[in-house]
């Protein structure tokens, strides 16, 4: 460096030598990063646009409220029932796990439990399908309930983690005030801590439902042989449901079936997008309210 040209105080302050190259590299990297983000958004837009434009042609009142072949009412009803049953199982357990993590567990119990939740969250959904098949379907019959168990396992870690985050935000002062009044632990948990966190718990549950509602792999093994004409709310028999029906229609290769599948995809995607966007906004708001 010292062997370079003498320092000239009058030289203009412009990039020269390798600085010009370095700045070019930097600018190219910025451009590439921006391009990557634009590409991801473009793919999302392309998928949503395709689903919306092709699905809109299929959807009318008959499509939503009547059975096969004019509509997909039974599938919608079945998916609704399965999701409700799954949530009825996953939500209480998930919230209790979150309570255990925030109220009772020391770091020794919390570590393994958190790892368990992470592992549950990482289980491939087809594995859960095999699991419920072996546990509930094999040598018996397919049922919406078996599917609901698989979906409950998918929802459980999401609900537990979401609720835990909100429970941690419940102000210490509230708990301390409750303790100072001599209120028993269980009473302050049920009447002070949980109600304060309720909004956040409900929205994380909605997020979990949105994630589980479109799961297909477990239902292929648990609830795939059904009559697309019959409206049924009995979870102990095989129930028609949206994801499996889309899957079947896509395998059949029949253009009318494709239109029907696009219509169902549009219904499912709009439910998921609205539920997750809405829940996310609400969650951010209730977190802000709790932490302020």
């Amino acid at each position, binding site marked *: 460096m010292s062997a370079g040209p003498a320092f000239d105080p009058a030289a203009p302050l412009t990039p020269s030598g390798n600085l010009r190259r370095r700045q070019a590299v930097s600018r190219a990297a910025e451009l590439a990063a921006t391009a990557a983000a634009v590409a991801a958004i473009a*793919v999302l837009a392309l998928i949503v646009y395709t689903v919306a434009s092709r699905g809109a042609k299929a959807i009318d009142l008959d499509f939503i409220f009547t059975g096969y072949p004019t509509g997909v009412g039974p599938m919608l009803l079945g998916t609704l029932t399965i999701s409700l049953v799954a949530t009825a199982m996953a939500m209480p357990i998930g919230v*209790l796990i979150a309570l255990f993590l925030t109220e009772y567990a020391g770091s020794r119990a919390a570590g393994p439990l958190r790892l*368990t939740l992470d592992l*549950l969250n*990482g289980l491939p959904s087809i594995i859960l399908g*095999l699991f419920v098949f*072996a546990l509930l379907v094999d040598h018996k019959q397919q049922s919406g309930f078996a599917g609901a168990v698989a979906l409950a396992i998918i929802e459980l870690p999401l609900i537990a983690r979401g609720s835990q985050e909100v429970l941690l935000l419940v102000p210490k002062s509230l708990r301390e005030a409750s303790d100072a009044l001599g209120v028993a632990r269980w009473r302050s948990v049920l009447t002070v801590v949980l109600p304060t966190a309720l909004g956040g718990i409900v929205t994380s549950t909605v997020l979990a439902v949105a994630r589980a509602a479109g799961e297909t792999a477990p239902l*292929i093994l648990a609830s795939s042989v059904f009559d697309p004409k019959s409206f049924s709310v009995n979870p102990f028999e095989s129930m028609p449901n949206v994801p499996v029906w889309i899957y079947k229609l896509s395998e059949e290769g029949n253009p009318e079936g494709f239109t029907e599948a696009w219509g169902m995809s549009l219904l499912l995607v709009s439910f998921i997008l609205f539920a997750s966007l809405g829940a996310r906004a609400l969650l951010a708001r209730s977190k802000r309210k709790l932490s302020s």
Partner: protein
Amino acid sequence: MATTVSPAARVGRGARVSPLRRRLDRFADRALFGICLLAALIAAATIVLVGYQIVDGAAPAISKFGFAFVYETTWQPNFGTFGAGSVLFGTAITSSFALLLGAPIAIAIALFLTLLAPGKVRGVIGPLVELLAAIPSVILGFWGLLVLAPFVQSKIEPFLHGLFGFLPIFGAQQTTGLSVFTASLILTIMVIPIIASISRDLFTAVPPELQDGAAALGATRWEVVRGIVLPTTASGVVAACLLGLGRALGEAIAVSQVIGAGSEIQASLFEPGDTLASRIALQFPGALTELHKASLFYLGVMLLVIGLASNLVAQWIGRRFAYAGTVAK
């Protein structure tokens, strides 16, 4: 409650609260703890039970084929011979392709979100990228089947074959576009949001003093990223990629819709193939024999082992990294 104050009442809470109430409180406290503990145990038991049921379902195939099942490549349900070699190959190819293509894009998106995008753009694009993960796989697969596969077949395959045709992986184009290549592209779309959102959180946590220090020494933005941001988060990013890998390995539905269900090992990416997960989804509902079912369960065992392993390694790296991070602060 009490209107008259006796001297005993000043002694403490015990004197004021009725014994019945106290006993009730103690009982309810224990009960609440008990149910919470029970819920936690249910979660742990679920993992164990899942493992047990899958291995139990695979038992006939495990005792018949032993470990050779893992690398044997013949899969002929009609003749009762099963081997996972070809689907293991398919899984390795599709997942590594998805990761090789998806990870750099996802990391670039995360860098864009943390370092380049102004606040408002970040608030819009961040959630949108995560929404990409919310699209159900069956719909992504359906889109892949009807929109992406024809495009791949008519445009991308001839282009790549023309350019790199001397490499065996870019073989001659096929008639349908249902191929390992298309499946890998779908998986790429699936892993990007996972890796991007975790990496973004990591990049946000990089101490600004370090970045400002580098910038003050004359580093360009890219040099700050190369020299500061990526090295301090490297292990976390690797963990994020492993989580993405776990997602790619286990995806059954979307892959089974676009991969074309081939049963041979082919050099060309444009040929149909199959993966562990997609083979289960495709063949299980129509499984011919108990042995066929058990073999599919065996694929499930392999998938479970690989999936849990990548997840555990990711957690381990993530935890080590978190530890290093707190020490550095």
